[in-house]
């Protein structure tokens, strides 16, 4: 729902060298929030940067009526977001887009996430945990220091494997053999991925080979996040034809096999 919300910030803390974590009080928000959806957040009140930035929902705490974001400090927008203090209000547009589909028939899923894509898949791991779907996650990052979501996923009951550049374990071949092992050993029902083109291609290949359904959460640079500006487009392949879609409106989660990865 494209709605602007001004909601209280409960916490906003640095959790590792490059990552921050923010909790928002959603008790005044009525919309239902699904894993994979995102909010378009105003990071500063200044004339620069003034455009909103998209962030996935990292955790949805329905009992406490809060949501959490995990964000990487990248440029000016995310730098300014770190300056927001508890007690101040956050200006959020959303929840936007369509989230993940967790088929009731699934009882074993495999997630592969790279970098901040982990934040996007965490809410899915949480949902899987809640629904009793077993979940294995392969998390890929530059360094161990960036794998802070690993514990959160473990708390949700996921079995977590990590690969990093630091340990020279994040190469596609290494991830591929881990994925094959998990898919075969655990009889995985579906694949989910976010955060890397290389991992997305790998997921597409393995999904096709093993005949598995899957979903991918895409990140495209956004303007409006309301379907108006056509900044965030990507192509889907359907019945042999390419169709342009807006990630903010029809995504950010798409069927794995349809996305044309450039």
């Amino acid at each position, binding site marked *: 729902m494209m709605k*602007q919300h001004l909601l209280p910030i409960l916490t906003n803390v640095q959790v590792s060298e490059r990552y921050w974590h923010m909790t928002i009080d959603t008790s005044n928000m009525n919309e239902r929030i699904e894993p994979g959806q995102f909010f378009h957040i105003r990071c500063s009140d200044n004339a620069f940067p003034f455009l909103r930035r998209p962030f996935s929902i990292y955790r949805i705490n329905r009992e406490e009526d809060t949501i959490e974001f995990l964000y990487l400090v990248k440029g000016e927008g995310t730098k300014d977001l770190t300056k927001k203090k508890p007690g101040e209000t956050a200006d959020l*547009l959303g929840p936007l887009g369509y989230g993940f589909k967790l088929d009731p028939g699934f009882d074993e899923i495999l997630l592969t996430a790279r970098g901040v894509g982990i934040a996007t898949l965490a809410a899915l791991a949480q949902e899987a945990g809640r629904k009793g779907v077993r979940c294995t996650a392969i998390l890929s990052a530059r360094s161990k220091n960036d794998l802070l979501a690993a514990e959160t996923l473990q708390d949700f009951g996921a079995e977590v494997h990590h690969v990093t550049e630091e340990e020279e374990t994040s190469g596609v071949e290494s991830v591929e053999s881990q994925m094959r092992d998990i898919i075969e050993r655990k009889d995985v029902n579906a694949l989910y991925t976010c955060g890397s083109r290389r991992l997305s291609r790998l997921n597409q290949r393995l999904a096709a080979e093993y005949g598995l359904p899957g979903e991918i959460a895409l990140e495209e*640079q956004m303007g409006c996040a*309301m379907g*108006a500006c*056509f*900044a*965030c487009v990507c192509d889907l392949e359907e019945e042999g034809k390419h169709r342009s879609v807006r990630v903010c409106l029809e995504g950010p989660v798409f069927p794995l096999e349809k996305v044309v990865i450039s």
Partner: protein
Amino acid sequence: MIAQRKMGISIGSLTLPNPVMPASGAFGPEMHEALDFNQIGAIVPKSITKHPQPGNDTPRVCETYAGMINSIGIQSKGLDAYLAKTIPEFSAYDVPLISSISAESIDEFVEMSDVLGNHPDIDALELNISCPNLKGDGHAFGMDADVTYELMQRVRKVTDIPLIAKLTPNVTSIQEIAKAADAGGADALTVANTMLAMAIDTESRKPMVGNVMGGLSGPAVKPIMVRMIYQTAQVTDLPIIGCGGVMNGNDAIEMIIAGASAVQVGTASFITPTALTDVIEEIREYMDRHDIMDINDLTGTVEI
């Protein structure tokens, strides 16, 4: 007693309930979830082309100081889809519908205006003459006074509904183009489209938008637009629709004082989805505060 202030304005034979409308390309049907379309002055959909077009490579937007550069291109489903879907979708609202047209040649402008300008649900046409003339020298139509005159004159012959020429600011003299559009039969002028701009990522040395260059919009361009509105108002009596960097009611009022009769709001909607109705409300507050009974009385009242 609350005074009844008049906010309606006229563009040729068309009356708008208030002077605030969206800028083409920064407004879409999905925004109805966040904005009450029935409150705005008019609906202006994204520019339409005759044939389907894919638009430019991504990234298509980037942010610069107090502005943004877009190189969307005109991603368009073509005229047939526009007639079948876009027009019915927008005609459901109770406000005038102004179709924005982009074309590759004067002939194509004429052909499209003949279709859209005689459609019962379309109230006015905005001709995006800032797009390149592919059958000419590739420069925008609106960069050449003679081309602008010929284009307006030929379109004028195929339709009776109000014609708005959306001028490009990327010219040496906006006055010359404004005069040519006026002489060619325009009923109003939108001043103006985006300014050609470029930004480079110094780490990768790559342009920030896929198309290398793009159009700058947002508060950064507003003083230039105010200047151009003022200059245009000196040479023509046509109503001017100010566009570029309107973020709030005060920006709209500034353009009106410079010579505009109405304003368009683009980039601001990306930040605040209710920007259009917020601007209307803030104009009303200004009118109350300055006891202005009719918004038209404010147009061109800059004291030099």
